[in-house]
């Protein structure tokens, strides 16, 4: 499977007190922002193109509070992202299970999957627009398509790389095909499936933004495009920062869902679930 751990590796736990760490990080951030502010304030960079940090921060106010224009765009984008993510992921997993159950289907599907994988998915955007019009449908279709592949491929890989000894055991115990799938293959492949789902979530926001860039009248992509086209760069940067926050929130949510679903992959989750199960079985810890 492809590399899918997207966190920064090699960061040992820092034992110094929290305030010290926070102070150091803040000092660096303030230093960078100060340098930037200085460079633009004294005319070394064009403030029209590189807005000062202070200008970016003040432009959050009209966006969110006094004029509040961000909210309707935010709502549209979030609806597109979530709907497309759910539909695309479910489709991907379901199709992968179908394809994985039958070796014949899998074999004859494979070349098409390879070609589709090589195609930049987002490139289908203009076609979707021509097919489905400029409304919500096309955007939903684009996000669905973008979200389809990672879960599909990871689920298929997980099913195909299932442990043959386990399947043998299930068969010798007289399990049905369905039981083998739901009790052995899927739980075993769950970490990989969840990694695919997380990748889908990571690309959903990008897919929605591209759909909105191509053509739409509402959404964060439209807002960003309009602000940049009007050369209101501080507003554009404020919108971009909002997207960073949204992206981080989606990432964190997926991370916590993943921690719950594949709880046996981390120490804390394992301890939590086994304590709960022990209680429910009536065994004292």
């Amino acid at each position, binding site marked *: 499977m*492809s590399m899918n751990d997207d966190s*920064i590796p090699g960061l040992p736990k820092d034992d110094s007190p929290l305030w010290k760490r926070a102070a150091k990080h803040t000092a660096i951030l303030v230093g960078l922002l100060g340098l930037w502010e200085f460079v633009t304030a004294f005319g070394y960079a064009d403030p029209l193109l590189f807005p000062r940090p202070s200008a970016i921060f003040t432009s959050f106010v009209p966006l969110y509070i006094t004029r509040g224009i961000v909210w309707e765009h935010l709502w549209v984008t979030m609806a597109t992202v979530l709907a497309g993510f759910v539909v695309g992921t479910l489709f991907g997993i379901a199709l992968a299970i179908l394809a994985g159950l039958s070796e014949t289907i899998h074999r004859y599907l494979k070349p098409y999957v390879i070609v*589709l994988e090589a*195609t930049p*998915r987002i*490139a289908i*955007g*203009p076609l979707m627009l021509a097919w489905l019009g400029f409304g919500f449908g096309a955007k939903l279709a684009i996000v669905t398509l973008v979200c389809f592949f990672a879960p599909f491929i990871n689920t298929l890989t997980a099913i195909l790389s299932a442990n043959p000894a386990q399947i043998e055991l299930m068969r010798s115990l007289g399990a049905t095909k369905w039981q083998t799938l739901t009790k052995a293959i899927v739980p075993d492949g769950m970490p990989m499936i969840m990694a695919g789902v997380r990748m889908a979530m990571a690309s959903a926001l990008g897919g929605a*933004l*591209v759909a909105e860039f191509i053509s739409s009248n509402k959404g964060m992509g439209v807002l960003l495009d309009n602000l940049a086209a009007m050369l209101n760069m501080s507003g554009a940067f404020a919108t971009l920062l909002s997207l960073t926050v949204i992206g981080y929130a989606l990432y964190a949510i997926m991370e916590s869902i993943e921690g719950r679903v594949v709880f046996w992959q981390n120490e804390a989750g394992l301890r939590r679930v086994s304590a709960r199960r022990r209680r429910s079985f009536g065994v004292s810890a």
Partner: protein
Amino acid sequence: MSGASTMAGRGPGFVARLTDPVFLRRAFTHLGIFAAFISVWEWAGRTGRLNDLIMPAPSAIADALWRLYVTTGEIYWHFFVTFFEAVMGFLIGGAIGMGLAIAAALSLTFRRYIAPYAVALNVTPGIAVTPIFIAWFGFGWSSKIALAALIVFFPIFVNTLSGLLRTDRDTAELFRSMGASKSQTFFKLMIPDAAPMIFAGLKIAMTGALVGAIVAEFASATEGIGILMQRYAHRLDIAASIAVLLSMALMGLFLFTMMEVADRRVVFWKHQSRLEAMSRRRRRRWNGPATTTESVRT
């Protein structure tokens, strides 16, 4: 991703397989399914069961391909523009990503203080920066190169970093005890050890570079394969649009295969057939041409 990477590493040679009855039967079934699919589609298109504006028949798409590649030949220039943008973006973003990753691997402090920014960059959809880059770099090639570089950066950065951090401890100990210098340890141990992971990152990034170039073209461009496709879609010439899309798939496959080939050449020890070929060649170079495997062992 994995689906395509399984294409490599096929067992026996292609020519030998041509006489294998199982292989032949499967190949024919593949072709049969494909032909059946295309003919049903063509039939539905001819008899008016499919709307031409929505899903043109295969013959119309083939016709459009002919027009694009032979009669007018207009696709070549656009093809080249996008290819150039993607490759340039890949090189620039890759150089920055690898440079920063090497610095981060060598210094814990640097790693610790760059981490939040790398994470922030990763959770921001790179594509979202398109309008800002267009305002900065204009409507020409440079804004597309910049976006491709931005998208390429993270996968290369994170894979290079984790590859470099994974150096085997015992081997590092061995290097130290044999008095290897810092640069020797770096070039002879850390880099070769990290190479498989770095290449995994490069492969992901290559596809990303193409996406970046194409999306930036969608947003605003005068030349490139992305804008070509969008133009046809806006004219509702869906057949030509699909023809361009197929060309994009071709370009994606080509770029990916290029990386795959580079991977097999550079990280030869991870692929059995390449490993054998390499060791055969080295054996010949070190022992003179006549030696056999046995004489090497003694």
